[in-house]
């Protein structure tokens, strides 16, 4: 009884202290905001932004509203994060397995990559790629080129798919084929690779030729007669996106490599020995025995790396790429509405975090459920 009274009293005291601080802060903020003539509602979101955004996935002009600027920034954040997450996963798994390989030079090379990149601040790497590597590149006329790829100080130019009328039918046929193949594999029976491939690609290929090849590749070309100042055609990733994706994927890749290594090492040695005893080749043992068990351990930290990557993409603000944080900073400077802008940012990032955590919980539940089955 006495303990309970003490507990309640303690909590009341804690609440009173925190509440008191909050009330004092709000009172101060009210006075400070009024003194500086700063807006205190979210109404400013509808006002004209007045600044440009160099790269936007949605139609945006300086005449658009602040809310639209924030949306463009959020989409840029998501775009860069998705691209970087894809490459980081590829790099990370490759480096992780390379570090585990019995080949001395290969494993040392992977170790060199991981230990170097993990121990240098991401911002330094980003500035290095952006300022020291991409900025001094030659102009469009003297682009560095690989087949189909042009790299110059205006960015990285990649081949892009182009769609003629009829492309939608090909896409629909591909989706139908994929559904058919999936259904067939789920429903059991003989699962030959050839049939699956035929089901998967057959309808799409047939439609592709019936509609006169509506999907093609558009290659970037520099032709001084057409455009003296830049490469035409293809998909152009500006240097900001290129540097950001490069730095983020190399940095996160080094963390993923360590996660993969730890995951594979956590599978007991007896498993690979048993696989060898059953006559599986090393590659088969990796695919059927080691990886499925390692993935259970790898996936949760992998997902938190994706989350960290999304948060790290806010470093875009340092190289002037209009991601959510950079747009917010501009709005903050223009309107002074610090509380609202930062509250919005926090809500958006927290929503992304919670969505990711939800995904993690779902995975854990599914994994437990799968194990019980």
């Amino acid at each position, binding site marked *: 009884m006495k303990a309970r009274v003490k*507990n309640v009293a*303690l*909590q009341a005291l*804690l*609440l009173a202290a*925190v509440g008191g601080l909050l009330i004092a*802060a*709000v009172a*101060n*903020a009210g*006075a*400070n*905001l009024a*003194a500086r003539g700063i807006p205190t509602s979210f109404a400013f979101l509808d006002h004209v932004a007045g600044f440009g955004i160099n790269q936007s996935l949605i139609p945006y002009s300086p005449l658009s509203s602040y809310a639209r600027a924030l949306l463009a920034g959020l989409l840029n954040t998501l775009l860069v994060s998705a691209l970087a997450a894809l490459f980081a996963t590829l790099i990370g798994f490759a480096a992780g397995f390379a570090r585990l390989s*019995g*080949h*001395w*030079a*290969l494993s040392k*090379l992977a170790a060199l990559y991981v*230990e*170097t990149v*993990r*121990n*240098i*601040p*991401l*911002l*330094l790497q980003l*500035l*290095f790629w952006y*300022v*020291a590597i991409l900025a*001094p590149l030659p102009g469009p006329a003297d682009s560095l080129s690989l087949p189909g790829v042009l790299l110059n100080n205006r960015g990285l130019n990649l081949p892009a798919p182009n769609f003629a009328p009829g492309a939608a039918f090909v896409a629909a046929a591909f989706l139908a084929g994929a559904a058919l193949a999936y259904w067939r594999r789920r429903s059991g029976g003989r699962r030959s690779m050839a049939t699956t491939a035929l089901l998967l690609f057959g309808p799409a290929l047939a439609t592709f030729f019936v509609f006169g090849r509506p999907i093609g590749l558009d290659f970037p070309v520099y032709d001084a007669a057409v455009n003296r100042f830049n490469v035409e055609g293809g998909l152009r990733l500006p240097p900001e996106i290129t540097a950001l994706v490069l730095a983020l994927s190399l940095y996160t890749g080094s963390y993923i490599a360590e996660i993969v290594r730890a995951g594979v090492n956590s599978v007991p040695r007896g498993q690979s020995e048993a696989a060898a005893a059953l006559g599986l080749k090393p590659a088969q043992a990796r695919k059927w025995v080691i990886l499925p068990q390692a993935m259970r351990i790898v996936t949760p930290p992998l997902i938190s790396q994706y989350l960290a990557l999304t*948060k*790290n993409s*806010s*470093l875009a*603000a*340092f190289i002037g790429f209009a991601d959510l*944080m950079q747009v*917010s*900073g501009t709005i*903050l400077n223009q309107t002074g509405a*610090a*509380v609202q802008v*930062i509250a919005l*940012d*926090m809500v958006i*990032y*927290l929503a992304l*975090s*919670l969505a990711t955590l939800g995904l993690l919980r779902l995975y854990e539940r599914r994994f437990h459920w799968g194990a019980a089955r």
Partner: protein
Amino acid sequence: MSPAPYLRESFASPSAAPEARSDFLALWRNNLFGDVKSGLITALIAALAAFALPPLWRFLIADAVWSAPDGALCRAPGAGACWAYIRAKTPFFLYGAYPREFYWRVDLTFACAALLIVWLLWPGARAKGAAAIGFFVALPLAGFALLHGAPWLGLPVVGTNLWGGVMVSLLAALVGIVVALPGGVVLALGRRSNLPVARWLSAGLIEFVRGVPLIAVLFMANTMLPLFLPPDWAPDRLLRPLAGIALFASAYMAEVVRAGLNAVPSGQTEGAQALGLGRVATLRLVVLPQALGAVVPGIVNNFIALFKDTTLVAIVGIFDFLHTVDTARLDPVWAGPTIAATGYAFAALFYLAFCLAMSLYSQNVEKRIGGGGRH
């Protein structure tokens, strides 16, 4: 009775004994050129090294300019890294615009900090309690008096607008760790408390700070701290990001400490209670020493991450080490095509050396904990 049809009637002939592997060279040959695939990989890596190492060697060592009065030599075509520039700018990289005659104040502060850290981390050192009090109480007070100045002690005030370079980076990391260790312990204990209010408040704060990027926390500290405090307090421009870093570090530290607390078996608490220890004494004498001891590698890794993250204070205009390097390259006396790369290479070497040393220490502790009779 005839044997089952699937049983062999005679022994299979034994396969050849594996090649003798005593020879050191043969071992290497086998590893690097054992079969076609590993031979190919070796050749690829050798090609990569042959492609990448000579230019790197030429840029960093052979063609580098080691001493020059200004950037003219470094701007010559074909010149490599401009180490002369690093040499000329070293005071700026280390101390920012801190007055030259007071460098000793900075040196003294960080020498004390280094001494206390070594004392705290040295395995088996004595009187760690005194070291802890020195680090968490005396050092911040003395450091403030030394760095900022204390007119009543005869130390003139040096405004934070003059601070910069490695000094600010180390300061940010130190402030982070000095606040985050106690702060993290309090938050972690709060999150495990049986008082619901304490639990919600701690968990809310931890998840909130961990859910947003550090840049957002820095923006928040920079713009909202002056709004939420009384107008005449006007927190210093360096103090604001430091407060943000301290908050950020505490939230991450709390999760590390929580892992440590979870690793202490509940029998320890029960045993302490059976001996008649109170709640606070149980925590102080039994649970926390074991919990913190178990997560020393985690704490060090957290510190490495924090040190790398201090580079982000540049977003609110603070001149940390990386920001001074990034600004110095615009100096017209030195500006040239190789200056940016030189500066970044130097900064990378600095961070690499610092972080690698820390991570070697943490791996060392991990091994010691792992081998220390726990298993």
